């Protein structure tokens, strides 16, 4: 069974136990997170996870937290029982990430348009300290409707933050409809380039392509944007590209399809 499908299964089972999660958002971004953490791009040290000069990943689209938790669980930063407590009483892993709840959770996010401005400060501080690390920020395409994204974009360029890598999970959907329908935007490249970012585009479900681009260094002293073209809900046929699945759990009928498509056995479904 391929690793991405296995991770999606974990995401679903964890959400099923909790009774709620932003499943479709977690499914669209999981491939990129997998490559970052499991293909030696974002470096980490399990023995010393808070080392000052570490690479950092900031989930600006905090509602996709479950994808991050599942990856952190896979690499050993989050224990199984912690993950299984997701969104339940006594857990420190909520629907939106909380800074320090586990190693690898670098910022409390949830309200959109916060993670990138926060990351600008992190990237600046790391530069001031002379570190040679990278600050990765995952934002949504819909999130770019928040004004502070653009405040942060201007500052990142002005302060020459070439240690900042913004990954846009461009799944083209937001809660109510498509981003294009709601705000008339079908392409991001020109906008970010005009502001001074180095922009690349990838198929966010092609692991080789993600790896090749993420391993490449910046060409000049500019912050980078990687537009990751994805499908919201990828991996579960009836969720793919359908806005209503932004925040919803399947009914009994739909559950049968999920089980089949993600390879879930009846006995694995625990509430």
């Amino acid at each position: 069974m391929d690793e991405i499908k296995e991770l999606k299964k974990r995401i679903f089972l964890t959400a099923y136990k909790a009774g709620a999660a932003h499943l479709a958002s977690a499914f669209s971004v999981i491939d990129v997170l997998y490559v970052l953490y499991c293909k030696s791009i974002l470096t980490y040290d399990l023995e010393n996870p808070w080392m000052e000069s570490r690479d950092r990943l900031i989930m600006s689209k905090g509602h996709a937290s479950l994808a991050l938790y599942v990856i952190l669980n896979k690499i050993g930063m989050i224990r199984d029982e912690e993950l299984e407590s997701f969104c339940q009483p006594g857990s420190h892993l909520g629907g939106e990430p909380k800074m320090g709840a586990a190693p690898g959770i670098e910022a409390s996010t949830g309200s959109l348009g916060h993670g990138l401005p926060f990351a600008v400060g992190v990237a600046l501080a790391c530069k001031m300290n002379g570190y040679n690390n990278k600050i990765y920020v995952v934002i949504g395409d819909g999130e770019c409707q928040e004004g502070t994204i653009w405040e942060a974009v201007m500052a990142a360029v002005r302060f020459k933050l070439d240690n900042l890598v913004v990954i846009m999970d461009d799944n083209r959907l937001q809660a109510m409809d498509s981003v294009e329908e709601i705000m008339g935007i079908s392409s991001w490249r020109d906008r970010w380039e005009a502001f001074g970012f180095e922009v690349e585009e990838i198929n966010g479900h092609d692991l080789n392509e993600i790896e090749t681009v993420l391993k490449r260094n910046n060409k000049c002293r500019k912050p980078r944007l990687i537009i990751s073209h994805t499908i919201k809900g990828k991996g579960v046929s009836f969720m793919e590209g359908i806005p209503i699945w932004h925040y919803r759990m399947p009914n009994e009928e739909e559950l049968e399809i999920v089980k089949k498509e993600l390879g879930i056995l009846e006995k694995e479904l625990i509430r």
Partner: protein
Amino acid sequence: MRDTYLKMLYGLAKRDSEVVSLVSDNGLIVYDDFRRDFPERYYNFGIAEENMVAAAAGMASCGKIPFAYTISAFIAYRAYEFLRDDVCFQNLNVKLVGIGSGITYSTLGPSHHTTEDIGLLRSLPNLTVFSPATRAEVGWMMEEAYRIKGPVYIRLSNNKEEYYDTNTEFLIGKPAIIQPGSNLTIMVTGTIINEVMKAVRELENDGISVEVVSVHTLKPLDTKYIAKLIQNAECLVMVEEHNVIGGLYSAVAEVMAKENIMVPNLAIGLPDMFAVDYGQLDAVRRANGLDGKSIYEKIRNFVDKVSYGKSNNNKYK
């Protein structure tokens, strides 16, 4: 007050290389010394206060001690959610320094006033809220802000007057006694102290002995200390250049309710309204009943009522 702030900031930056200065397109000239001597620790974020506050939080998460400086209204209102989610919720070591607090920008009107900031910010967990009255308080506050490992808001405006001796000792959460008195206690926060002191001279001419207390820390408040301070007051007056909802009056009323203290009390501030009119600060204070004369009249009226109620015989001139 701003000069004291900058002098202190410069000293802290010299002492500790983690101290960083952030501004959002303000502080022309006044930051020259800092920029000259610590250019690598000075960042102008442009007209983007939300970004500045969130970035300050990001810097603090890496061990920096950012002092983010801009007009108070743009910290308290414009950047409120960033102050809440990024700074306070994560309990990060960010210092927010607001200038032109209260109705200092008297010619500009309510867009540039901060007359609800104490109410808003006092309710944010983890945040220390300072509201200095004089330069001596600012000097102490800057040391205190640096000592505190967490978020701090300092509500600056202008004041050339000074009411403290150079050796006055300030303590966080404990209001400072500017002068003792026995008939009336006035609690005041911020630079409206100058108008209060004008009123006090008038009250003293009437034979009323007035205790004046400066509440430089709005949060945390030492409840027991304040309870002790006010429980035997004949009359208690709170004066603030702020809405009477949510600010000093509310904070003291919370102490009274909690400690079961009932003393006759009066709130002087903006009565749930935005400040009206334009002009020099004196004129706008007058238009809003916050000048020395208006404050005197309100207090005198109140004292007379309380006094009649007690003895049916007004003991003051």
